[in-house]
């Protein structure tokens, strides 16, 4: 099965691009915008001319406050979360989503932007959305984005925990909340959380399509990777022919340290 251009594991492209590209456009439909939708579009156009997220955050907050029932409120708060990553406004916006919009169907679209912040508040929101949202679309997106968030946290945490002297620098870049999270990250616990999420994905969201394949297919591969291919597991047997056509097995080399190298071009 093709997996495309992954850079660190199973989800790098699927999640990496989603995380690293800040979203400056909300997902406003073109047809029949509500007054709040119109106001949001106008705000976004103004922002495009100005490009100072901090100056615009209060306006987005205000829009969300003035139109609490409108999907544009969710878009506005998601915009703040994504564009002011590592700033207090991002956490405030995520908390506002948690307080006032857990039941909104629009939250499905916000999951990706929220997950991109990698923050503990994002984790909480996604966890609750998965559990409490009445909309299947929100649940499946929350599940998918949450597992990607955990994957990315793991990757960063592995690097950081090997270099504790980098903590002050990390704090400057990621902010205090996320830095503490990364340094405290328990890999075994995170693996179990991911396993639970993939099991949920397989059970409840198997048919949801992704860019490549379905959530069910992704969950199956991921569960195999966690259960059979992760550090601490016995390596799956390899039994096949060598370059000269002679058969041999990985198991033949028990008792030896094995460096397994995947090489070659296509």
């Amino acid at each position, binding site marked *: 099965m093709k*997996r495309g251009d992954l850079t660190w594991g199973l989800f790098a492209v699927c999640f990496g691009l989603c995380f690293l590209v800040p979203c400056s456009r909300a997902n406003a439909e073109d047809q029949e915008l509500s007054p709040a939708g119109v106001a949001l579009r106008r705000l976004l156009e103004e922002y495009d001319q100005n490009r100072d997220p901090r100056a615009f955050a209060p306006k987005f907050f205000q829009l969300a406050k003035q139109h609490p029932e409108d999907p544009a409120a969710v878009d506005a708060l998601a915009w703040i979360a994504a564009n002011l990553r590592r700033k207090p406004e991002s956490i405030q916006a995520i908390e506002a989503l948690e307080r006032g919009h857990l039941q909104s169907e629009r939250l499905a679209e916000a999951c990706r932007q929220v997950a991109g912040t990698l923050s503990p508040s994002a984790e909480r929101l996604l966890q609750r959305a998965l559990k409490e949202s009445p909309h299947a679309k929100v649940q499946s997106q929350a599940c998918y984005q949450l597992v990607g968030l955990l994957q990315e946290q793991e990757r960063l945490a592995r690097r950081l925990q090997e270099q504790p002297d980098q903590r002050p620098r990390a704090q400057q870049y990621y902010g205090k909340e996320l830095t503490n999270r990364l340094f405290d990250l328990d890999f075994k616990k995170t693996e179990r959380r991911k396993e639970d999420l993939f099991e949920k994905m397989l059970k409840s969201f198997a048919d949801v399509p992704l860019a490549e394949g379905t959530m069910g297919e992704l969950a199956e591969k991921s569960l195999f990777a966690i259960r059979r291919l992760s*550090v*601490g597991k016995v390596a799956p047997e390899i039994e096949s022919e*060598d370059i000269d056509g002679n058969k041999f097995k990985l198991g033949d080399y028990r008792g*030896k*340290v094995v460096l*397994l*190298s995947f*090489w070659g*071009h296509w």
Partner: protein
Amino acid sequence: MKRLAGRPFVLLGVNSDSDRAEIKRTVQQENISWRSWWDGGGPTGPIQTQWQVTQRPTIHLLDAEGIIRRKNIEAEDVDAAVDALLREIDGKSGK
């Protein structure tokens, strides 16, 4: 890898090249002394698929019990990691 001669260590490859004759030429030219499985040519062979390998080179490290100990290990970290696992074997045999 010469410094590890006589130690319980082996390098094994999984090769994705499509032309077996070409691989043999490479092996001769580069003096590759370690054994590789030929994964059917191309990136979608059964071994690469099972191990979910999507880019090359990818290097994993297994201990003497066949347990995966390091994944996607960087070239510069290999020596220290292999030495650590060899010391484990020494430790177990009471050396």
